[in-house]
């Protein structure tokens, strides 16, 4: 448990992906089975046990610690697991004062520091009534980091910034195998994965995947460049709409025991089935579909903002399912009836996909239509106005086109020469920098996050109102320039944030690109930008000439009209 705790502790502070990977590989290399396997399961959310509720933890700690001191401490620390881990009485407190009157803090002398394996195995076999005593015993035996990690584990709040994909990549690196190979086997394996570790370390045969619904790493697209159109022949390619949703993979198949297995995976291979019970029940086929998660109400695709309200919810309530019905718009078929189709040319897969979708005939699963075009110019026109070529009311949920070679196989990762995305042009606005904030990790010495505002009419004339914050879009050289600008024009400091000079006659104009707008009650300006980034630094432009809030209001009004064309239409 201690090694695992030390790993989690270190991961929780580490912002760099590659450093996380190093820490994980180092841990897997130096930790024996079965502990490392259970750690892998914990980080990929593959452990099955009944978690402990916060009330149970609080009850345990209040048996041991003066409740007043606990309350003061909890107030200060702000996290139950951490407060408990820190405040849990240490064993030496008992022995140092043999003649002191009995105090609320006590601690049974530690007997045996549990291994992660013991904890996980005990959690799945311990009955509800014995659980508190079990946990208290572990807390007695572990040190602070150990207690913290234990409490995070059993309350299912691990959150150390490691995706399932990253953990699997670390296992793969351990033995120099391809992460995609681990991925393919993954969902047929079970904790503590001893056969997987044996294989990557060259000590055993490759495990057989018995999973009837495995995850297959998705194929990704490159952004298309202007010069590509000159190089490519339009007739070698086909096009689809690029939907503004979430990429998902749905796999289903029959296990050897006859049971149907249905899984929904994120693009990183996380099993997200639990979040989408309404989609899982629609997966009545044997194969693997690639497509986009959308929210469709009354036959109308909703904006990404609406979709976001369905995501990242802890519990999926009936209300959520009704208000945000999940929909799967599919564009590829990776396997069917036990046959791997990924080597087939795209158009052949597409034909089989069309047949399969019509056979599934479920209202929540439909085909992403092909966009027909004779020339790149025709496709450009379609992209500029999807509604004109049959996208109808769904046009607002389209963020451009996907261009795919008609003969492209389905290759994991981002292979060159097959798939391209041609996004709709972003919106642009000229805004004035108002605040700079320090970044994280490599950027911690740079003011790299910029809050910017546009003009509006205030009670005392024109004033700038913040409309967003951006932290990318610029080159390293531009970052250095922006950082210098913030430092040299600071008028106020608030911790990591600096307010810079701005006004009609001074200030720096930033050309900000963004994908969309929504109304927001949390922002002073009443609008929130989607995916804002710095497109250009307008060193040349006077702040007084930056855009006004009315510009954003117009974009917003246009967007709403396109999303809800049938409502409140003025005639």
């Amino acid at each position: 448990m201690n090694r695992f705790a030390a790993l989690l502790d270190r991961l929780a502070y580490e912002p760099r992906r590659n450093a996380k990977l190093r820490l994980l590989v180092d841990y897997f290399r130096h930790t024996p089975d079965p502990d490392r396997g259970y750690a892998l399961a914990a980080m990929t959310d593959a452990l099955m046990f009944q978690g402990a509720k916060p009330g149970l933890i609080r009850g345990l700690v209040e048996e041991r610690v003066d409740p007043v001191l606990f309350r003061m401490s909890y107030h200060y620390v702000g996290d139950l697991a951490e407060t408990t881990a820190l405040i849990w009485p240490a064993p030496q407190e008992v022995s140092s004062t043999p003649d002191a009157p009995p105090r609320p803090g006590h601690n049974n002398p530690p007997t045996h520091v549990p291994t992660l394996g013991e904890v996980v195995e005990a959690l799945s076999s311990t009955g509800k009534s014995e659980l508190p005593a079990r946990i208290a015993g572990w807390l007695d035996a572990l040190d602070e980091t150990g207690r913290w990690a234990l409490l995070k584990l059993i309350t299912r709040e691990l959150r150390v910034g490691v995706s399932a994909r990253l953990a699997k990549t670390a296992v793969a690196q351990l033995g120099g195998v391809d992460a995609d190979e681990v991925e393919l086997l993954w969902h047929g394996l079970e904790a503590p994965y001893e056969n997987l570790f044996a294989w990557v370390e060259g000590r055993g045969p490759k495990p057989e995947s018995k999973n009837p619904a495995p995850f297959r790493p998705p194929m990704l697209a490159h952004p298309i460049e202007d010069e590509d159109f000159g190089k490519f022949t339009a007739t070698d390619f086909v096009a689809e709409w690029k939907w503004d949703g979430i990429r998902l993979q749905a796999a289903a198949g029959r296990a050897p025991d006859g049971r149907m297995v249905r899984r929904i995976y994120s693009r990183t291979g996380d099993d997200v089935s639990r979040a989408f019970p309404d989609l899982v029940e629609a997966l009545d086929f044997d194969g693997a579909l690639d497509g986009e998660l959308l929210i469709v109400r009354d036959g109308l695709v909703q904006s990404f903002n609406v979709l976001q309200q369905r995501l990242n919810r802890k519990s999926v309530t009936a209300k959520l399912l009704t208000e945000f019905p999940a929909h799967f718009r599919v564009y590829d078929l990776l396997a069917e009836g036990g046959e791997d189709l990924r080597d087939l040319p795209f158009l052949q897969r597409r034909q089989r996909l069309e047949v399969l979708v019509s056979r599934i005939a479920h209202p929540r699963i439909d085909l992403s239509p092909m966009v027909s075009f004779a020339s790149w110019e025709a496709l450009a026109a379609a992209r500029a106005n999807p509604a004109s070529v049959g996208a109808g009311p769904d046009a607002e949920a389209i963020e451009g086109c996907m261009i795919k070679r008609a003969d492209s196989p389905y290759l994991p990762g981002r292979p060159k020469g097959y798939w391209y995305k041609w996004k709709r042009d972003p919106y642009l606005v000229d805004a004035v920098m108002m605040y700079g904030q320090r970044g994280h990790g490599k950027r911690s010495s740079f003011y790299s996050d910029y809050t910017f505002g546009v003009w509006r009419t205030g009670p005392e004339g024109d004033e700038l109102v913040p409309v967003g914050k951006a932290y990318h879009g610029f080159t390293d050289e531009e970052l250095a320039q922006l950082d210098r600008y913030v430092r040299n024009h600071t008028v106020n400091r608030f911790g990591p944030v600096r307010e810079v000079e701005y006004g009609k006659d001074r200030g720096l104009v930033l050309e900000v690109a963004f994908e969309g707008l929504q109304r927001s009650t949390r922002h002073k300006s009443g609008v929130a930008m989607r995916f804002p980034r710095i497109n250009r630094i307008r060193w040349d432009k006077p702040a007084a000439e930056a855009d006004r809030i009315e510009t954003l209001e117009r974009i917003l009004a246009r967007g709403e009209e396109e999303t809800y064309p049938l409502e409140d239409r003025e005639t």
Partner: protein
Amino acid sequence: MALRSTDILTQTPQGLYCPLGDFHIDPVRPVTRALITHGHSDHARAGHAAVLATRETLRIMAVRYGEDFADTTEEVELGEPMRIGSVSVRFAPAGHVLGSAQIVIEAGGTRVVVSGDYKRTEDPTCTPFEVVPCDVFITEATFGLPVFRHPPAREEVRKLLNSVSLFSERTHMVGAYPLGKAQHVIALLREEGYDAPIYLHGAMERLTYLYKSEGVSLGETPLVGDLPRTEFAGAIVLCPPSSLQDRWSRRFPDPVSAFASGWMRVRARARQKGVELPLVISDHADWDDLCRTIRETGAGEVWVTHGQEDALVHWCLQQGIKARPLHMLGYGDEGEAEDTAQAAETSEAGAS
């Protein structure tokens, strides 16, 4: 009849005052006679007429404020009793930083101990804390909540060394307060067998030199100065905490930012500061040691100067010990206090 404790020590706007001896202890404003517990700038200020302190504390003050920091200075030996006015005074080691002392005052059969800042754990750079039995114990409470329990400092240093071996091409920048913590960390690293040069930010040069001249062995500690970037791959660099995120840090290849402080015990705090490798190394007593020390002094009355007073006062009352918070202002500005905007300014100006 024993004197009342308030006859021996009272609070004035300048700080703790002993009317029978006509002196202040660690006054926050200029006074005619000041007894100073240790060299941190919130306790040791310039501008007093007469200052009485240990040799090391006087030297630290001279380094920080210049030789003329007071009109007259007088050096005291730890443990040597002296008479000031109608009270007897003795300095006892506090184990906080080099030269740190508690001040023991006795009059009419009552003994009051002003602990200053202190710690109980071993520190190779200063004389260990001495428990002085007393009637009134005046304690700090910087880490006066039961969540503050410092792990053994050696384990934290090992954590740093493990990271250095895992990320051997990256610079490990360790934020540490220039007086006390920096030298404490260096000494611990040396005890763990790390004998490579430990590079210093300019702000630490003179105090580290002072420690060495007082016989504390710290090994090779070159200045970062203008050494080439390549020099720092895999190296440990010590700097003031505010420099961790300053432009100064950009001279190092892909630095890991570590921070040695008792505050690092609380994860959210470490994360707020963007620390990637928190090291819980403190020069203050943790909760367990605060409680233990109060018990060991046998004091029937405890005054809490600064820090998290409420929890410690609550604990004392539960133990049947009279206790009250002094709510003293002006302490906790250096050492393990949160670094303020002002501290950031100073270090940016001083960075080279």
